[in-house]
């Protein structure tokens, strides 16, 4: 709450001066070298900051408009069988003053038999992965019993995690009351994930670096991380969009 309020105030103040003072760094021309010499500051060619500003603004405004249209409404939650006290309905009503509903909530739907893959009772993502590994390991297609043994091992791990989650129930409940959401740091104890740098939580302390990153991200006409196939490769199928956009 405190962070959001700070964000609100700072964003308002900064935005008010946005037209007078471009918010993104001045473009730094960098030769198209294939190796960045050690010690040289990173940088990429940037377009004029005014163009970046305009693009960010247009993108975010379109984003907000679509969000408002597509969010689950209070009425839809009520129709889904949720009482007046329900958190998601309460949030929805409060924020409805600004025509924005919580974006992260959807309704659980009954399973439509027409949409269901028939005769599949185990997650086929699991069995597909296990079948591939067993085929390599055994040198032949695995039997149903061999796949079932892998599935059982997965279920044993899930049962182990569920036991640990149940053991931490009081702690989780207390944190839920405090934060309003599931405490991920507790969950990480049994997930065996690589540790995350604690500094990661301090995002707003590094505005200058972020501004540089966002600027580069927005400067690309297509966007970063678009790995396109080389010439001569068969084109990947790109279906037509089905949503009027």
């Amino acid at each position, binding site marked *: 709450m405190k962070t959001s309020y700070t*964000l*609100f105030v700072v*964003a308002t103040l900064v*935005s008010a001066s*946005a037209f007078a003072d471009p*918010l*993104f760094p001045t473009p730094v021309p960098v030769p198209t070298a*294939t190796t*960045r010499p050690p010690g040289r500051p*990173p940088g990429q060619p940037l377009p004029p900051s005014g163009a970046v500003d305009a693009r960010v*603004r247009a993108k975010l405004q379109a984003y907000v*408009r679509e969000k408002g249209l597509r969010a689950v409404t209070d009425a839809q939650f009520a129709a*889904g069988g*949720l009482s007046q006290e*329900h*958190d998601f309905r309460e949030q929805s009503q*409060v924020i409805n003053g600004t025509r*924005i509903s919580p974006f*992260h909530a*959807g*309704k*659980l*739907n009954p*399973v439509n038999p027409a949409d269901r893959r028939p005769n*599949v009772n*185990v*997650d*086929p993502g699991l069995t*597909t*992965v296990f079948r*591939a590994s*067993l*085929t*390599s390991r055994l040198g032949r*297609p695995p039997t149903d019993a061999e796949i079932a043994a892998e*599935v059982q091992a*997965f*279920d044993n791990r*899930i049962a182990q*995690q*569920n036991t640990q989650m149940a053991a931490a129930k009081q702690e989780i409940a207390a944190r839920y009351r405090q934060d309003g*959401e*599931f405490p991920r740091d507790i969950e*990480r104890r049994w*997930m065996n*994930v*690589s540790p995350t*740098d604690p500094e990661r939580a301090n995002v707003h302390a590094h505005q200058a670096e972020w501004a540089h*990153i966002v600027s*580069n*991200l927005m400067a690309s*006409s*297509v*966007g*970063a*991380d678009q*790995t396109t196939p*080389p010439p001569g490769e068969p084109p*990947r*199928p790109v279906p037509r969009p089905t949503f009027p956009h």
Partner: protein
Amino acid sequence: MFITIAAMGIAPAQAEQFTVSARIFCPAALVSSAIGDVPDSSFNRFQLVPCAGLRVTARDSDTLFDEYCGSAYTNSRGEVRFSADCSDLTNRPDVYLDVEARSSLGFSVGVHHVSFFEALWIGIETIVGFPLTAPLAVIDYLTSHKTMSWVSAERLGNNNVELAFGDSAVGGDFAAAPTVSQFAAKQFWITQYSMLRFSQGTSIRPMDFNYSVDAPMGVPTTLYDTVVVDEDEFFSKTAHILQATPHEIGHVYYNGLHSGFVHWLIDGPDYMTHHGQCESGHFQTLAWYEGFANFMKDYAFQHWDWSVGDWTATYRPFRGCAITAGGGPVPSQVGLHLEGNVQAVMNAVFYGPVRAAQRAAIGTVSENDFVCPGGTRRVVSPGQPVKCESTYTPSCPMRWEVRRDAQGLTDICAQDLPEDPRCTPREPCGRPRRQPLACRAGDVAQRVRGADRCTHLANATLPASGGTPRARPDGSPDLTLGHNLASARTWFSLPSLDIALGWIRSEGTRSHRANEFWPNQIRPWCGRSLPGGTPEPYCDLSASASFRDEMSLISGDIR
């Protein structure tokens, strides 16, 4: 507010303990192939399937906040069944399920988090038209994350009663127009699939990461431990969303193993630019970063089948930009500033020969290479691994005897119990007992004239020089065939995925380019002597002519 809280303090709470059960479905994009199901390359055809590893929480709808009653991850059948308890001030708890796109494997799929003040700000912005270009606002849009939730209708919790919520699907109505809810459900499934693939090959997990599917930018793009996807990408480039998912997880792996967050902020601007697999004009830093992620993508989608000694399901790890599909060189595309070449170096080190022409020159393992021990018979069936067949005569348990029918065709085990004076006509106990002759588990019984036989089939072995391959953690062989410096075909060792990821972790922030990782980490591993007579690594330039020739086409820096 104070009065309400005070009232809470004196009101008797009604605590209830109950069991919650449900089965959760999510949309999966799989198509049938000759080797079983594989991900649908268009990522556009979905069917609901039981959803494994999803977190389900039971909560009680209350006035101030909704209480936590208990939670569990779904099992392989998408089912949860767990004990829950919560209390209400005056009534029985109104229990609902909160199914979150949170995986037991350590990631969350969701959306940008909108707090009250942000919503207020957005509302003002929408009405008045203020610009939203403040860096903080953009940063917050890109990095804040809320796990996607799908909530059920409420039911009253009763002591010692099972609340069965039945079958439910996440992702909303699939017949309706696409929504963020749909995107999140689809993204959860392919992310879970990719993570399962990685978990088969390595015990190393990436950082606990987020995948935000409604960002205003990102195609997708990884910001340290948060992957952001522009909604437009989901609308228009679904096939790319499929391909990109293990690639982005590869970035998360790399970011966590390479450095902390602040160092990534310094590296980040080098990564935030449009790039292509064989596009030139980029820093080697970008090429290494993307090439490594491409290697991880190749890992997730390839299907190595040892029984046929090749990749199946048409997906083959990339050979490099400097080599055409036919095997010819492309001199203009040589160098480690191309991410496709970095990808190819990693693929060659990890898989051995990748390029079809090179594999043909070395000669893939054929049926004739397999041998069987004496006393067994080689069995070659089209499309099947070579087997060695042996037979044996089944035997009966102790004190049983083999009997054959009059035609000599059907063998059985028989036991005639001695007469017992305690037996009566109403309760006979001395009747002869019969049972079929049984072979050992997995063997096949053959009815033949004379004594029946059992047939046992075992995999044939490969006695090529250098040893017999064993399985890596994911089942792929730890040896590959290649040419040595005398142009003789021999076996070479391959690293596991744990070893490959270990190179990133060991090098830390010291290196950012392929021509730094190669001399500092990869080449030392390739050049070392492996214990116990294990063959030389395939990537040893002083032993493997195949690898040396391949690298000479890709980059002069691999030396």
